[in-house]
């Protein structure tokens, strides 16, 4: 067998291992769906009565849903970081590293399984939202494009989650990463248009990576103009994914216990 065939086979084995974890403890998946749905209920309940200029949006749930999808991805990546960290601190990664398998296969296993897990939870969250009154106007092509940008976002967040999980010496060391991926969407265009914010917060919300992804998704799902957000979103996601990938490669090759 060639090196590539072996790498693909090892990646598949590693993916299967991580997916088995999800199936063994499905509560992880339940929480990953329940948290965004609760946030959706909360924000729709609180904000839909406030008079906001939401552009073309007839109802607040249509405005807020792209942000909820992004938050689902953010929550998914914090689960990934915790799983990688557990493997790292419990020693199984040390075992894998003494075996004749490429370190990249190990990383691929985390990323592919995280992608599958997060996409399933995002699909369930969207289904729940439709039940609650979310009315996307997208046709099949736009849905496909929305799925594509979601995949890109999840890849970016997961490739960041893996090195953060590897680098942290304890689960507590992940607090910073978890805070960033779970809180950053709040200071974006997810719940309130940045134009209604003030001063430096407005600037930050307009330029942070989540906003471009949210605006792209909103444009695709509900037909609002998304301006140059698509290109910005793709560049942000590709850049973050590449940075995370390169960092993770360094981490799996450096000395253990450093």
């Amino acid at each position, binding site marked *: *067998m060639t090196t590539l065939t*072996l790498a693909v*086979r*090892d990646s598949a*084995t590693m993916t*299967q*291992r991580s997916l*088995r*974890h999800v199936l*063994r*403890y499905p509560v992880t998946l339940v929480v990953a769906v329940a948290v965004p749905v609760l946030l959706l209920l909360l924000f729709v309940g609180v904000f839909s009565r406030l008079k906001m200029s939401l552009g073309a949006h007839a109802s607040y749930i249509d405005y807020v849903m792209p942000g909820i999808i992004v938050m689902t991805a953010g929550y998914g990546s914090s689960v990934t970081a915790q799983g990688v960290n557990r*493997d790292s601190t*419990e*020693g*199984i990664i*040390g*075992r*894998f*590293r*003494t*075996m*004749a*398998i490429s370190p990249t296969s190990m990383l691929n296993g985390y990323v592919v399984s995280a992608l599958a897990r997060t996409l399933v939870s995002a699909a369930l969250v969207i289904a729940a939202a439709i039940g609650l009154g979310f009315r996307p106007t997208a046709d099949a092509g736009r849905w496909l494009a929305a799925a594509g940008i979601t995949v890109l976002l999840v890849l970016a967040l997961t490739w960041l989650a893996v090195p953060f999980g590897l680098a942290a010496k304890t689960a507590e060391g992940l607090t910073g990463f978890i805070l960033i991926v779970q809180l950053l969407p709040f200071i974006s265009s997810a719940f309130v248009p940045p134009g209604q914010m003030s001063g430096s917060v407005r600037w930050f919300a307009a330029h942070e990576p989540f906003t471009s992804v949210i605006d792209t998704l909103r444009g695709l799902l509900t037909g609002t103009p998304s301006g140059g957000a698509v290109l910005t979103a793709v560049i942000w996601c590709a850049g973050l994914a590449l940075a995370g990938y390169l960092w993770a490669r360094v981490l799996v090759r450096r*000395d*253990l*216990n450093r």
Partner: protein
Amino acid sequence: MTSAITATGLRKSFGGTVVLDGIDLEVGAGTTFSLLGPNGAGKTTTVQIMSTLVHADSGEVRVAGHDVVRDPAAVRAAIGVTGQFSAVDKLLTGEENLLLMADLHHLGRAEGRRRAAALLGQFDLADAAKKTAMTYSGGMQRRLDLAMTLMGDPRIIFLDEPTTGLDPRSRRVMWQTIRELVAGGVTIFLTTQQLDEADKLADRVAVLDHGKVVAAGTPEELKRSISGAHVRLHFADATGLDATARALGGAFRHDGTLTLEVPSDGGAVAVRELLNRLGDVAAAVDEVSVHTPDLDDVFFALTGRRTAEATPELENAR
């Protein structure tokens, strides 16, 4: 004898602290080598360098004929490692852990299942095969860990303090397994703080202290290298003790316990000669015992300190 592992001039520091200060080791193929030393001596770091997990600052290590820095993949293909803390996937069952190893070693499905079943039986885990490793006791997790290492049928196995914290039964299973592996031609590199473990299992021992090898040889050589061996004569009454002490001279007498300690190397020839010298007085001797120093005495003689195993309580009881 071909070498399974050679290390020359191995040095490693972590953040300014010298952990290994130039060690040289050689392990013959098919033998058990034990690296003995207290906590912090550098045992784990040595294993991590030899198993490609940590890079040495300087020095050369060859494992199974391959350089650990230039050809880590070839080294990894030949070795198995079981560390101080069990490296099992606690979310998977015992059987799934073994099958995971089978897949990563690219064994066929049938072969993987066959080996997994055999190892589960050998390590007394058959009943727990379908339970997640999280529910296992510490001893069971450690046994599963070693079973996972054996799935790949490695020719060289590193065991870093494999019995630390194990209950006596798991410890016996571990020792028995090590003996069977060596009988099958496997090379074992074992670190331990337990002197009896090195004594019972190892063909050769190196004593590591503060990152330096302070002694190396067979357990017997090490024990003979220090003074302190003696023959102990025990008497039923003080009359016999007095008579024998006069006859021998130079013996160390303990009136309280009615014993005489006669310096000797403890060998059969020396003991026969001693008894011949006693002649008629020998009838007064109740019991003869030979005391040879154990590795703890060796360690004490070499470093001036007792190892972790010889606790103060035991010292007082002696």
